[in-house]
């Protein structure tokens, strides 16, 4: 579904359900699905275990006490780290990067909620703005927080990520949605603390189409949304150099994230959300295999 159409639907729950249900219905035979199974393994009974979890059939066969371990117990925390800095409030294709990221967040949250993972949300600009701890019951809270999100202040990565790293004490999956207008090394420095606790990181670099191809035509003064600085720009003269600079930036990010085993995906807000969901699920699958 066209992101710009989705952006016009106010209800995030409805949007996320429409996207995820359609996605699941179309992809239910996919190998990724079913990663979550009920039974995981048996282990020997130790005093203190709940006797209701003793596998009595196995006791009957072996006369030994075993306790069933269920996969459900291995459900991870899933948190989305959403950049709500002013630069995210930009869009030329009918949807801003923030709206795109918000819809994507809702979709991912909805998706992992179906998988019974605990969902949480952190919004940040140059500081942490909203923090919804991961919980199986926080789906509604996450959606409500997303609904209220507004881009207001300039953003930075280092300070909020350091603060967040202290909160994510339990291992989980962290999805970062940002436009990453910082130098690649600075980005990596900011993101790295999040991995120290064993979190799996999935990075979505959300960019508008014009940020990628610089498709402006009229010579005009370009104003930095966050700083207000203006520069006279002749797009036709700038385009090639700009595109090469952006490409180099993206390649540098790709290289550094890959080197740190971080899944990195560039999202063009003019493209449907499926691409992002595929990226997430493939990354998830890779994590499962590794595990």
């Amino acid at each position, binding site marked *: 579904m066209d992101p710009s159409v989705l952006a016009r639907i106010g209800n995030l729950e409805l949007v996320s359900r429409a996207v995820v249900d359609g996605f699941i219905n179309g992809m239910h035979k996919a190998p990724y699905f079913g990663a979550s199974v009920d039974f995981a393994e048996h282990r020997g009974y130790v005093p203190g275990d709940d006797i209701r979890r003793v596998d009595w059939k196995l006791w009957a066969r072996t006369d030994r006490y075993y306790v069933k371990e269920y996969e459900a117990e291995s459900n991870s925390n899933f948190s989305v780290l959403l950049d709500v800095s002013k*630069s*995210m409030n*930009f869009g030329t294709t009918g949807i801003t*990067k923030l709206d795109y990221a918000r819809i994507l967040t809702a979709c991912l949250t909805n998706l992992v909620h179906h998988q019974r993972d605990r969902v949480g949300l952190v919004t940040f600009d140059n500081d942490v703005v909203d923090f919804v701890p991961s919980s199986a019951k926080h789906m509604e809270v996450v959606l409500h927080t997303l609904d209220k999100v507004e881009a207001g202040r300039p953003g930075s990565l280092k300070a909020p990520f350091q603060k967040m790293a202290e909160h994510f004490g339990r291992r989980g999956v962290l999805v970062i949605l940002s*436009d990453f*207008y910082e130098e690649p090394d600075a980005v990596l420095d900011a993101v790295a603390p999040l991995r120290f606790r064993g979190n799996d990181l999935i990075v979505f670099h959300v960019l*508008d189409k014009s*940020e990628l191809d610089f498709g*402006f035509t*009229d*010579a*005009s*003064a*370009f*104003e*930095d*949304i*966050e*700083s207000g*600085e*203006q*520069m*006279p*720009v*002749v797009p036709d*003269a*700038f385009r090639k*150099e*700009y595109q090469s*600079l*952006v490409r180099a*930036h993206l390649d540098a990010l790709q290289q550094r994230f890959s080197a740190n085993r971080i899944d990195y995906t560039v999202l063009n807000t003019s493209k449907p959300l499926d691409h992002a969901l595929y990226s997430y699920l493939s990354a998830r699958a890779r994590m499962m295999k590794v595990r």
Partner: protein
Amino acid sequence: MAFLAPLFFLGLAALSIPVLIHLTQREKKMVQQFPSLMFVRRIPYQTVRRRKLRDIALLCVRLAALLLIVGAFARPFLWRPNAATAIGATAREVVVLLDQSYSMAYGDRWDRAKAAARDAINRLGPSDRASVVLFSSGADIALRSTGEKDRLIASMDAATPTAAATRFGPALKVAGSILAESPLPRKEAILISDFQRSGWRGEEGARLPAGSTLTPVTIGGPLDKPNASVTSASLSRSTFSDQERVTVTAAVANRTIAPVTGDSLTLEIGGRAIQTLPLNIAPEGSASVAFQPFTVPSKNMRVTVRAGNDALPTDNVFDLVISPSAPVRIVVVDSGNRPGAGLYLMRALAIGDAPKFEITSRQPAAVSDEDLRRASVVLLNDVDVNVGLGRRLQRFVQDGGGMFIAAGPRATWPQEADILPASLSQPIDKSRGESARVGALEYGHPVFEVFRAPRSGDFSTARFYAYRSVAAAPNTQVLARFDAGTPALVERKVGSGHVMLWASTLDLSWSDLPLKPVFLPFIHRSMVHLANYTEPAPWLTIGQVFDPDASSAKAQATGRLALTPSGKRLPLEDEGSSAQVLELTEQGFYEIRGQKANSDVTVVASNIDPAESDLTPVEPADIVTAATGSTGQNAQQAEADVPLTPEAQERAQRLWWYLLATGILLLGVDTLFSNWLSRT
């Protein structure tokens, strides 16, 4: 470098407009918001700087264009103080003054005058301008200051000689005003005329601007063609068989060197020839021709005295309007019980001839309203007036009638009718000792004006043995006093009429005035004055004005119009119903009539000025000297020394044209340049 209109440099403020636009466009150029200039900032700034440089070049082009256009409007020129005869010095402002008085119709003078004017116009250079002024007694600008020769010649060809006389003064004043307003360096007036002496008195005070030249073109020639002109006519009235007869005597002059022989003089009445007499006049001579008397049966008879055809036919005609003389009707109120009391008075009034006096004698009780309605003057000859008669006489005077009161011993006047100029007191007896005399007269008054000259009548010879002591009322005029200082004759204006009080008798009882020669003119002048009688003029001269309100035409209430001799209709009332005077401009008979078909008609004869018939020329140099202050040669020299005016220098150089063209060209370049910039 100087400028004719430096105030236009205020327009340089417009230079700030493109600068402001340039600046504001830079500031308010379309702003494109962008998430981050992180990458844009890394792109070399050289590209932006290069664009700014190109914009400044565009700005300079625009500023230069505006500067040039403003400079063009300021009309710049290179000031050359000594550029008297430089380029443009040949440009002339020429005023052609063409005499169209009726003397120009003599022989072929008018054709020669037009040819001379045409030559003057054809000699105009490409940068010259000319005006055509047609003049006679006045001056009219036929065409003002143009270089179009065809229009100038056409305006001159359309003119014909008028019936007016020559007056050089107005023409020179008009020419002076045209030349004074002209910016051209050379100013020239060409005066084409027959230069009659009658048109120049030397006191006109008309001066052309300094440096102007006046070129006289004399359209004269020998006066070898006979020209008889009827200069005036006199009327002699007589009564025959109770009918008034008029004898017309015409004065005819010949001011040429050719004798008038075998010509004829015709008297026409109503357009029909009544009598024709032979006319022979020696060169530069005159003759008086008397026609047979004829009766005047009705008002406004149109009489024309016409000489035969000659070289100047305009002055051969003399028109008159003759009406039966209107008598002054007087009601003499006498007591009737004193034989001989009115003898001298009645005899004096009976002698009246111009005008005649029609006398009605009544006793006080017999004065009827019909008598007062018909009368112009009521003369109370020492009578006792009761209240009823006094009030009727008061109304009579207020309506415009005149009243003369001879205050003898019996004269009384009722207090209820307050119109007397003085209050009557007891008689003063001067029978013993030295008698009284009239000592002081108001000679400025119409009654005594005829006695002003020496040996024109002496009132002091009359002796008064008694008189009434009177005290003049306010707002009255004492016209005569006795030697004792008391008023003898007092006048008061009441309403539209006048009342005169004579403080003695008009018989021999109190004085011997009736025996003196001054008695008869005194009585006649008093009656004429009280009756407000004016002799209608048989003719007027072109250039005079006719006041319809002062004539019998005033009987027509409103909506009067004048029918000119050429058949034009001129309304004589403004929109506000105020009457206009009629200026006579044509020769012939004017008719003034009301709008209604049966309304009374007044006819006025309008004749040419006979002085114009005298073709004796004046020396043109006199006029040139008076108008320019120098002879023609000096004026030419002065003209050469006059430096070019700034206007003339600016017009000759025409720098503004080049500046304007360059400015417009730059604007075109600016358009192309900016289009090119917007594409790159």
